[in-house]
């Protein structure tokens, strides 16, 4: 069975290495500060007993007052997983750091989140729409999108 790491324990370890980075935890979820996302990602990937070498998926949810960006992480060698979440407030083109330098698998998924949800990833070398065409008005998965 893929072990879901305990969020509280992982948050404690993240805060030990990067003080103040993890703000909340619940079950297998850990919320991190968007500013320290890249550091946390690097920590999770490079710490040998965590070894989160695979980014299963990136997604975003529009909770109207904020966007939540969700990273499903997996270690194939150790067969455990964790869900990393971060919040971005503000609806006018929210931005967050791209993790493409850490996980190559973020490439198309970050483009998809930008295309459909309108969260821009800073540092992505090719931040273009992927499913819709350039010039499409708005981002359809937002709750205030009107057809």
């Amino acid at each position, binding site marked *: 069975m893929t072990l879901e790491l305990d969020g509280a324990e992982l948050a404690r370890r993240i805060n030990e290495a990067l003080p103040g980075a993890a703000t909340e935890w619940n079950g297998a979820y850990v919320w991190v500060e968007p500013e320290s996302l890249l550091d946390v990602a690097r920590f999770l990937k490079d710490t040998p007993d965590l070894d989160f070498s695979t980014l299963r*998926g990136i997604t975003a949810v529009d909770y109207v007052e904020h966007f939540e960006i969700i990273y499903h992480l997996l270690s194939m060698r150790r067969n455990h997983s964790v869900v990393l979440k971060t919040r971005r407030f503000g609806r006018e083109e929210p931005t967050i750091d791209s993790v493409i330098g850490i996980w190559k*698998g973020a490439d198309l998924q970050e483009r998809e989140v930008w295309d459909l949800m309108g969260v821009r990833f800073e540092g992505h070398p090719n931040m273009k729409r992927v499913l819709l065409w350039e010039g499409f008005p708005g981002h359809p998965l937002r709750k205030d999108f009107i057809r």
Partner: protein
Amino acid sequence: MPIQTEPVTINLGPQHPSTHGVFRLRVTFDGELVLDVEPIFGYLHRGTEKLAEERTYVQIVTLTDRLDYVASMTNNQAYTRAVEKLSCIDVPERAQYLRGITAELQRIASHLISTGFLLQEMGTFGGTPLMYCFRERERILDMFEMLCGARITVSYMRPGGVTQDAPPEFWEALAVFTRDMPGYIDDLEGLISDNEVVLARTRDVGILSDELAVAGSVTGPMLRASGVQWDLRKADPYEIYDRVEFDVPIGATGDTFDRYIVRVQEMRESVRIIEQCVEQIPGGPVRSDAPFFMRPPAGDAYAAVEAPKGELGFYLVSDGGISPYRCKIRSPSFINMNVLKDMLVGWKMGDLIIIFGSTDIVMGEVDR
């Protein structure tokens, strides 16, 4: 003085570079050599994730059929597992076995298509092996018709189980199928695996290294062909997979031939799983009494299955209403395209079509 050549950019598609759906590759060539590749998606984008926000949990099952339309059963399975996890519904034993049998049949059907089209793309036999593959797939589709009346868009599974129990003729057809299939796979392999043309065109072509595959979030037979032993059925066994014995075939080099041979070996393992399921299947109900208008408690859940193309996952967010607040589909075909450029650059035009064919993507799932 050496002859100067200029790179030429050509659109392959959007009609069909290799019959996987409507897809465009913008390729920059130097002569025949591929210098740069840019895949362009979206021709089949139907906004499935948005549509799901306006439908009830049971209605969404029909949307999932239309994602990877050559493997609807596993789409149903991934989605219903996410709903079951979200609302803590148990699935009766018999339904779990029926799901296991249909999912493995679907895996065989999908791998047959993938293998058939790979040969078609090589242009070696002018369509004959494709028709051999379709002949066997037809028998699987006939069995699906016995189960639920549909062949492609099956919607056979529901949150809490499957729609109805299998009729007696299904079991007869299944027994004949599992008896014949290993011999048929031998025939197919005899036709292909030792064929000199196939070997020359696939061996050491389009190598995907294991580090790149893991870093690029690649899953499924493509990952296993690169030598990484990762199969959700083994690593995170769901439903019946901890009660059956099977092996996870892996490739040695991650070339096009390995991607083909891993799929063929997986078909054999699928037949093994089906045989064990038929032996073990208990009686009893096939569906727990989940309501039609489900209102899962507020929260979120992610569930994934090993679909024929890789890890197919659904991430559902519920706000307590009758439709999901957000329904994210982690589609393996789409995410496997992360490494497409790395696999294609440096090869020739003719190799490009074969390497792309061996990735086995379906545009319904890529564009959603």
